[in-house]
């Protein structure tokens, strides 16, 4: 599973992209965010307030109960501020 981080989420976790292999019980987006936050440090800090984290799976916006699978591209980012 590929994880992408953008904007201040990227700065807090210290990486733009990583490959992860979460355990089988990580079935949903919420599971994944919890699992990433358990790493502590910048990850815990970046994911502390879930209301500020938007998630896209395979480049489509999803909710926290959306499933995640091995080959997914999961992107985590703050609310958008373009235009």
């Amino acid at each position, binding site marked *: 599973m590929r994880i992408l981080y*953008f904007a201040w989420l990227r700065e807090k976790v210290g990486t733009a992209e990583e490959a992860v292999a979460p355990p089988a019980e990580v079935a949903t987006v919420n599971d994944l965010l919890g699992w990433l936050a358990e790493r502590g440090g910048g990850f815990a800090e970046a994911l502390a307030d879930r209301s500020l984290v938007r998630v896209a799976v395979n480049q489509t916006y999803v909710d926290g109960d959306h499933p995640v699978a091995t080959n997914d591209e999961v992107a985590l980012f703050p609310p958008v*501020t*373009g235009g």
Partner: protein
Amino acid sequence: MAVRVQREDFDPGAEMAALTAGDHAVGGVCAFVGLVRDMAGDAAISSMTLEHYPGMTERELERIEAQAHERWPLNASLIIHRFGRLDPGDRIVLVVTASSHRQAAFESCQFLMDWLKTKAPFWKLEETPAGGQWVDARDSDDTAAARWIDATKGDRGS
């Protein structure tokens, strides 16, 4: 329909003219250009850097554009959004809509800007005297976008 996400500047007049060239059914063209301001609240902005999500950003813009075409009778439309480092006064975004009806052109252009502000994956980092500051999403943008959810279909009457 066209979407471009690019580092380079664009020429609004040339884009508007090209969009309707040869289509004499078009009665009105509405264009919106967003510019970098030199102030954000009380803070002076010396420059801004726009980050995006290559791939998803284009997809979201295309999806929003397709919705506008479903909702209003548009002859053509264009969205250009820049990324990278920009200075105050620089152009950030261009939205152009063309229709036989002026209300359709106005409303769809406004719809595209409102949705782009709340849905398109872009993030602004502003350089201020206090250092780089990620811009917070604004409630007023959510409100502006939300009004299109309940609104009846675009007025096709004028």
